[in-house]
């Protein structure tokens, strides 16, 4: 459980985070999203006790980071963005140090090491020196360090950068399963990652929260409209765009062109369907049947997180 209340942080007079509040429950994966310099890393550094807040409070499992940073650090596993590793050590020496730091002893230590090495797929490289590891293995070693003591809170700053697609899928799977019993906060600018593993999202822009909610909710809230891509087979050779106005509830036609003599492709702007209303696709279908046209394709275009992201962060600039 993580809670921020009106968190502010300035570095040398420049405020990087302007009063951010949010909470993340146990058993959830929260994605922090935002352009570079939005304050993602700063928030993580406060939550890990690396920096103290300038004002406001940050609570980790009810413990204030500024009051008892050691208790917070014990509860947190952290993978910094730069994946810091001691180059001179071997993989197992490095993990031994992490185990020492976490005060792991006896059989639980051996079990923790084995679990972390297994979960991050490091068993083949334990004797290798860190400086000889590939980027992907370094990332995994950083993650192994973070999960070694089975912390209730995991803070991961861009956990999948530098991994190949197979490794990305593995690590995402691991994070998702960890998220079932822990509070996981991860930052990313890969939007598919948020859709793939996060139960909620906070979009940050210039140190403020620009939007928050479940990935699908954010999409809904911002949509305000429904877009339908339609491919029609017209029976007659000529198709007048004006005929589209027969569709119930049509707001406007974003585009309409003839693909061939008989096929027309159009993009329609429709009002968002609220529960109980007729869905946009339904009225398009009814119209086509009534007009004697054949629908070849009917696709509801989802506003992707990319578009939402761009929309939010650009709108935010005026504020």
């Amino acid at each position, binding site marked *: 459980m993580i809670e921020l209340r009106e968190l502010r942080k300035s*570095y*040398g007079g420049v405020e990087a985070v302007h009063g951010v509040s949010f909470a993340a429950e146990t058993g959830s994966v929260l994605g922090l999203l935002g352009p570079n310099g939005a304050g993602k890393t700063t928030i993580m*550094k406060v939550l*890990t*006790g*690396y*920096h*103290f807040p300038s004002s406001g409070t940050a609570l980790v499992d009810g413990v204030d980071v500024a009051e008892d*940073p*050691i208790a917070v*650090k*014990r509860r*947190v596993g*952290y993978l*910094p963005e*730069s*994946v*810091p*590793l*001691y*180059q*001179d*050590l*071997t993989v197992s*020496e490095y993990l031994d*140090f*992490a185990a*020492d*730091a*976490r*005060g792991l002893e006896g059989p639980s230590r051996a079990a923790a090491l084995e679990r972390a090495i297994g979960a991050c797929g490091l068993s083949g490289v334990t004797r290798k*020196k860190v400086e000889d590891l590939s980027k992907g293995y370094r990332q995994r070693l950083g993650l192994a*360090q973070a999960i070694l003591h089975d912390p209730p809170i995991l803070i991961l700053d861009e956990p999948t950068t530098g991994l190949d697609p197979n490794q990305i899928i593995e690590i995402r799977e691991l994070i998702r399963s960890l998220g079932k019993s822990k509070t996981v906060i991860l930052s990313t600018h890969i939007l598919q990652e948020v859709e793939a593993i996060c139960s909620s999202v906070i979009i940050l822009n210039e140190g403020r929260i620009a939007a928050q909610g479940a990935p699908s909710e954010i999409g809904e809230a911002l949509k305000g409209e429904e877009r339908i891509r339609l491919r029609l087979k017209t029976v007659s050779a000529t198709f007048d765009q004006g005929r589209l106005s027969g569709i119930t509830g049509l707001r406007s036609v974003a585009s309409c062109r003839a693909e061939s003599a008989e096929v027309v492709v159009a993009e329609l702007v429709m009002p968002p369907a609220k529960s109980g209303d007729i869905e946009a696709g339904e009225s398009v279908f009814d119209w086509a049947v009534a007009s004697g046209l054949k629908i070849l394709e009917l696709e509801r275009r989802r506003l992707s997180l990319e578009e939402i992201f761009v929309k939010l962060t650009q709108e935010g600039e005026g504020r």
Partner: protein
Amino acid sequence: MKNVLAIARREIKSAFNSPVAYAVILSYLVFTGIYLYFIRGFYAVGQADLRDYFSIMPVVLAFLAPALTMRSWAEERRLGTYELLLTLPFTEGQLVLGKFLSSFALAAIALLLTIPVPLMASLLGSFDTGVLITQYLGVLLEAAAAVAIGEWISSLAKNQVSAFVGSVLVLLALVLVDKVSGFLGLGGVVASVIDWISLAFHYDSFSRGVIDTRDLAYYLSAAVLFLYLSAWGLTRRKWS
């Protein structure tokens, strides 16, 4: 204490996994050996006395200590492991002490590896063991103070090179400052203040085989002061 040892152990492992520690210790032994046998002509002088050998230790330590401490914090910054270290459940005091302990242990290893020198010399004449032990104690105490200063400068420096150069300059100044009062013919309070801050001045009586509690107190309080300054700097950083 466990945490302190965990940090120190990691440091020492890193040091011996890379060639740096070996190179530093070896050059220390080679240099002091050359000084004793060739420059001072130990065998030619024909005296069973290692005072000359120990009298250059303050100057040598002004290079040895920075060579051992330059990596300490500066390297953590470069690798970004600084962030890791400060987000592990260590207190600032434990971090500073752990790092100090590892650098001091390396300095002590280097010093103790010189034991064959008096051992070999003892075959040639009768040495005063008490004096010898006092001389070693003096070097170790001075090393503690020098290492604490080096650690502090490393905690302020951006990189290893500036940590090394900065520490060498500060330590050399502290070692040589007591020569200034003699050179300028200063007397009275000024001279005694200048002498008092000098690392070498307090080492004099040890090298003659005398343990003076004032010197003991000087070295220990210098070490404590600079360790405290390092810990204070680490804590302050969090708020900035």
